[in-house]
């Protein structure tokens, strides 16, 4: 049984978590092209090696980031998303000019 160290709940069984994919920079959905949005949603680097991914502890709905090596199936580091995302993501409204 594999143990994942949740930054909020401590070491827990990995079956309590879901993996939600690569950490990417989200384009502004109201300002980007269809191709850019499709790339963000559907296309992945899918790299072999050390990757950074969003994970969620399902029972507590806590989202955080995991750095792991997907060649050796080793978890290297888990940390709160605030380490990377230091400010709130703002969205422009479709009828507004981008500031």
């Amino acid at each position, binding site marked *: 049984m594999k143990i994942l160290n949740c930054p909020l709940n401590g070491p827990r069984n990995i079956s309590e978590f879901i*993996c939600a994919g690569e950490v990417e920079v989200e384009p502004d959905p109201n300002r980007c092209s269809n191709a850019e949005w499709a790339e963000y949603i*559907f296309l992945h680097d899918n790299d072999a090696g050390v990757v950074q991914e969003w994970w969620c502890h399902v029972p507590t709905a806590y989202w955080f980031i995991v750095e792991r090596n997907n060649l050796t199936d080793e978890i290297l580091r888990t940390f709160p998303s605030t380490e990377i995302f230091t400010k709130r993501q703002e969205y422009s409204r479709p009828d507004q000019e981008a500031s």
Partner: protein
Amino acid sequence: MAFALLKYGLGFGKFERQFPKQKDLKDSYDVVIVGGGGHGAATAYYLARDYGITNVAILERGYLGGGNTARNTTIIRSNYLTPEGVAFYDESLSLYKDLSNDFDMNIMYSERGHFTLAHTDAAVRTSRWRAEVNKHLGVDSELVFPNEIKKICPQLNLSEDVRYPVMGALYHPPGAIARHDAVAWGYARGATMRGVELHQKTEVTGIKRSNGKAVGVETTRGTVNAGKIIQCVAGRSSLVAKMAGFKLPIKTVPLQACVSQPLKPFLDAIIVSGSLHVYISQSSRGELVMGGSTDPYGVYQNRSTLEFKEGLMAHMLELFPFLGEVKILRQWAGMADMTPDFSPVMGETPVDNYYIDAGWGTWGFKATPVCGKRNAEMLATGTVPEVLKPFRLSRFEEFHQVGEKGAASVGH
């Protein structure tokens, strides 16, 4: 077989190689196929047989058919949900039926009948939907209920005293299994007989491009120029596409499977349950071939997990309680290239002269012949065949996916 062994053992008769000896790489080929699995070999076969294009090299990192061609559970069927998917897989199924004759080699194609079990009202509804789509497109497929299932497959536990009783099933009589190695060998032999070169232990390390066009490949055995390149890789599709300079809508996740010790033939049908994440069939060797769902997170590794076996066995014993004493003989994992809509990625790419045959999650083996045939048509004529068009890479930016809920290991 025994006489042949004796004949060659005693030194009578000259042994014929199945494949010609591997030569040095040439400087250039008309077509370079990256990946020597079923799809790559099939593409070369139809290029040589139907279009007379034989200046072709298949470049394979490991050995022929040693990747995911050897790691699937060999189920062949065409009872998918989308009209695009049904047309595509049904063409594949009809090609499969004649393959043994085409190859003059027995691929042990065995028609068994295929049940997709439904354990919920929602799954029964999807089964009816699939059956109607299938029938409309001329595919033999029917929604059946426990009293009918009992007649065709009395081995199955249809009791209601289980966690997920069987409420109905999608029955697909043409569902079949075949020997997966023989499919790769047959295609490769047919191709090499006609002059195609198969290069094993030859890893592609880079794609040469000039002015947005792919012009050649770099390999561990030197650089070759290519008129056209097609990527027929599974499990490393994103990594190869990255060398060509584009991203794919793929997440690579292991899919584990296992076989039991050999038993006397008792199970004719192929049993699949999307909700229980189980599929099971008995091979011609008597082993029960069993698979589950893809792993919960992606790794590029064929490791085995206890969770997989526990989960699979718990569900399987509900369907076949009498297998409780049967032992597992071996287990393995294949790398499934899962796409968001459970359909493959076929055809043209953002790079000119570079074609793709990827996105094979749990539906790659059954598509081998149609992919080979249509890839060959595409490479020879330069136009994408109608049957491949729905699976183009650009469908994602057009938001025009082919949502294939009929894929294996997909719950409904």
